[in-house]
C-alpha cells in the first residue's frame, strides 16, 4: 500500500488525473475521449523522444541534438518525397539517417571521450546548419508534399490516428528493451556506476553509443512524423523541443545523474507536459501566461520528485524503525 503510493509513477499519474479534473471543472469539453485522444496524439512525438532521451540520460549522457536531428531527417524526408521516393523507402531512410546522426554523437562520446553535453551542443547547431545548406533555407510546404506522405500519421485505426499507435508501439518496445534485455539493463548499470560497469565487463562507451544510436533512430522516425503531420519542413521546426524532451524525462522521474528512470515515468512526464500545453489555451488562460505557468510546473514537479526520491537512509536504531 505505502509502496504503491510512494512509487513516483503512481504519484505522477495521480497529479495528471487531478490536473484533468481541474481542467474539466473549467472546460468539460477537454476531457471528452475524442479530445483526450487528440491531446495524446499531439503528445506522441514528445513521448517517443522522451523515451529515447530517457535511455540516453540513463547512461549518464544527454542528447541535446534530438530536435535538430528530427528537423534534419524531417527535411530529408520531405525532399525525398519531392523526388518521388516511395514512402516505405523514406521510412527506412529516416530511421537510418537518424541512427547515423545518433552514431556520430555516440562515436564522439565513446571514442574521443568528449562530454555528451558538449558533443550534442555542437552537433545540434551543425545538424540545424546542414538543413539550411541542403534546403537553401527554403520551406517545403504542404502543397509540395504528396498526399500519401502526409496521410500516414493521420490514418485512423480503432479511433486513434496512426501517429498515436506508433507512439504506443514504441512505448511497448522500450518497456521490453529496458526491462528484459541485457542491453537495457546495462543502460542502468553504466549510468548508475560507470566505474563498476567496467569491472563487470560492460563496455561503457559502447553502451552509451548504443543509447545514442537508438535515440537518433527515434528522432529520425519522429522527424518524418512531425513533418508529415504539420505538413511543413524548414530549418527551425521543433526549435527548442530538446528542452521539452528533457523536461518530460525529469518530470517523469528520470534522474539526470543517470542510472534511474522508467518507461512509465518518461511517458507520464511527456503526457503531463502535453496536457499542460494543450489545456492552457483551452481553459482561456492568456497566451502570455503560458510560459510562466509551464515553467513553474516544471520546478514544482522536479522539487516534488526529488523529495519522493530522497533515500530514507539506513535506520540503525531498532525501535525507531
Amino acid at each position, binding site marked *: 500500500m505505502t509502496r504503491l503510493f510512494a512509487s513516483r509513477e503512481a504519484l505522477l499519474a495521480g497529479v495528471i488525473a487531478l490536473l484533468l479534473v481541474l481542467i474539466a471543472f473549467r472546460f468539460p469539453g477537454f476531457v471528452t475521449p475524442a479530445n483526450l485522444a487528440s491531446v495524446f496524439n499531439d503528445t506522441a512525438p514528445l513521448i517517443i523522444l522522451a523515451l529515447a532521451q530517457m535511455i540516453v540520460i540513463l547512461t549518464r549522457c544527454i542528447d541535446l541534438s534530438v530536435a535538430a536531428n528530427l528537423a534534419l531527417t524531417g527535411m530529408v524526408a520531405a525532399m525525398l518525397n519531392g523526388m518521388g521516393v516511395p514512402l516505405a523507402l523514406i521510412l527506412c531512410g529516416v530511421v537510418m539517417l537518424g541512427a547515423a546522426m545518433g552514431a556520430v554523437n555516440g562515436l564522439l562520446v565513446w571514442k574521443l571521450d568528449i562530454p555528451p553535453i558538449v558533443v550534442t551542443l555542437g552537433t545540434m547547431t551543425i545538424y540545424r546548419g546542414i538543413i539550411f545548406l541542403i534546403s537553401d533555407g527554403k520551406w517545403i510546404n504542404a502543397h509540395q508534399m504528396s498526399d500519401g506522405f502526409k496521410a500516414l500519421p493521420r490514418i485512423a485505426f480503432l479511433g486513434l490516428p496512426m501517429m498515436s499507435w506508433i507512439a504506443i508501439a514504441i512505448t511497448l518496445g522500450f518497456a521490453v528493451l529496458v526491462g528484459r534485455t541485457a542491453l537495457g539493463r546495462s543502460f542502468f548499470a553504466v549510468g548508475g556506476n560507470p566505474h563498476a560497469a567496467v*569491472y563487470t565487463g560492460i563496455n561503457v562507451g559502447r553502451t552509451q553509443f548504443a543509447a545514442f544510436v537508438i535515440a537518433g533512430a527515434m528522432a529520425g522516425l519522429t522527424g518524418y512524423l512531425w513533418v508529415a503531420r504539420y505538413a511543413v519542413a524548414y530549418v527551425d521546426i521543433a526549435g527548442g523541443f530538446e528542452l521539452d524532451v528533457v523536461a518530460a524525462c525529469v518530470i517523469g522521474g528520470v534522474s539526470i545523474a543517470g542510472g534511474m528512470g522508467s518507461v512509465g515515468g518518461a511517458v507520464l512526464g511527456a503526457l503531463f507536459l502535453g496536457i499542460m500545453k494543450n489545456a492552457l489555451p483551452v481553459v482561456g488562460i492568456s497566451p502570455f501566461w503560458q510560459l510562466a505557468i509551464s515553467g513553474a510546473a516544471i520546478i514544482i514537479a522536479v522539487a516534488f520528485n526529488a523529495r519522493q526520491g530522497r533515500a530514507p537512509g539506513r535506520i*540503525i536504531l531498532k525501535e525507531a524503525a
Partner: protein
Amino acid sequence: MQPHATGAEPSAHPDPVLRLSGISKSFPGVRALSDVALELYPGQVTALIGENGAGKSTIVKILTGIYQPDAGVIEIAGVGTHFPTAQAAAKAGVTAIHQETVLFDDLSVAENIFIGHAPRGRFGLIDRAEMLRQARSLLARIGADLDPATRLRDLGIASKHLVAIARALSIDAQVVIMDEPTAALSHKEIHELYELVERLKAEGKAILFISHKFDEIFRIADRYTVFRDGQFIGAGRIADVTEGALVQMMVGRSVDQIFPKRAPQLGPVLLTVAGYSHPTEFADINFSLRQGEILGFYGLIGAGRSEFMQALFGITKPSKGACRIDDKVVVIRSTTEAVQHGIVYVPEDRGRQGAVKGLPIFQNVTLPSLGRTSRNGFLRLAEEFALAREYTQRLDLRAASLDQDVGLLSGGNQQKVVIAKWLSTKPRVIILDEPTKGIDIGSKAAVHEFMAELAGQGLAVIMVSSEIPEVLGMSDRVIVMREGRMVAELTGDAMTPEALVRAAAGIPAGVAA
C-alpha cells in the same frame, strides 16, 4: 628461513593454474609494475603482500582484463593468453572481488550479481525468475541472509560486500581473486568469509588473497608472494616463513610493530557530549574527553559510530543533545563551524569524503587551512607548498611531486594526504575514523606514532577503529557502540579483547563469546 627468490617449487606440487611472468605496467609518471611474476596453484591460497602502492591492485586489474600489461605473459594451464576485456577474463575462468566495491546502487541484488551474464529465456530476453532463483542459491552458499529482490541502495556496507562476493562466485572460475576482502567486514562476516575460502580451496580453486592483516594471512594462506615498489621480491610457502621475515621483505627493513608507549598526560576536560541523539541513527551518547587523551570507539560495522562522529562534525544534525568545549556550550550546524571550534574529522571513506581527486596534493592538504595560507582571501602559493610539504613528508607520503593529482596515488597514500590535510589545521579535537584502514604496516606505525605525538601535544583524539589490537594498543579509554547506542565504557584492566567483543555483539556476561 630463506625465501625462494624464483618462486619455483619442488615437483611435489601440482602445476600452477595461472602463471604470470615478466609483467610490466606503467602509468603516466609511475611505473606500477616492472617485470613481476606470480603463480597460483589449484586448491591453495596465495597471499599477495606489499606496501601501499606496491602494485597489488594493479596486478588484479591486469588479471581481470581491466588494464592491459605493457609487457609480459599470462599463462592459464600452461597456455599463453591475454584478456582484452573483463568479460574475456571471466570466460577464461578468472573472477575477482575488487578492492573498491563495484556495484550498482539502483539495481536489485540479483541484478547486481548477474549483470553481464544474466540467464536468458525466450527470444533471448532475460529470465527474471531464473535469475532470482540462482541468486538465492548463491547467497545461501556464502551464508548471506539477503533477499535477492532488494534494491542494493537499501543494504548496509557489509551486505554490499557480500553481494560483491556472490557476484564473483556467480562466474564459474578456476581462479578467485580477493583484494582486501575483509577490510569492510565485521567480525562475524570475516569468519564466514574464511569458511568460504576453505570451501573454495576444497573445490580445487586457486585463490589470490590480498591483505594487510598478517594474522589472517597466516591463518588462511598456503603461499605468499611479495611485491615492493612494483618489483617482485619473493615467493614461497607460508609454513616456511615468519611474520618478521615477511615484513622485512615487504618494507625492506625491519619494522617495530609495537604500539608507541606513552604516559598519557591528561589535561582539563576539553569536550563534553551530553545526550546526543539522532532520530534514526544513534541515541543518548554521553562522554567527556580530556586534553591529551586518546578515546577509542569500538563496534561492529554499522554500529553507528561514523554517523555519530559525522553529527559531531556538523555533517548531519542531531535532534537532541548538547556539546561543550572548554565548558562553553557550542552549537555545530556545519563543518565550517566545527573546524572553527577546532574539531576535525578524518573520514572513513577516503575516496568520496576525503581526497579531492583531480586536484594536486598540495591543494588537498591546504584546503581546510586556506584561511592561514591566504591574506584577505588572496592565495599565497609559497605558503601552501610549505605547509603541504611539512605534513606530507612527516607521514612519509610516496608521491612524484606535491603538484601531482591525488587521484593517481595508491589508496594508502591517498589516506595519508587526507590525514595530512587535517593535521595541518592544528585542531584541538581530532576524530580519526578507521585511520589505518587499507594502510600498510610501515605507514600504520607512522600514523600511530603521530597519534601519540598529537595527544602528547595536548590534543584530544577520538579514534574509531574495528581492529581490536589497534583499539587496545592506542586508546586510554574505549567506548563500545552497538545499534546506535553506547553499551560499554572501558578503562584500564577492563580493556580486554573479550570485553570488547562481548559488548559489541551484545553477548551478556557469562555466555561464551
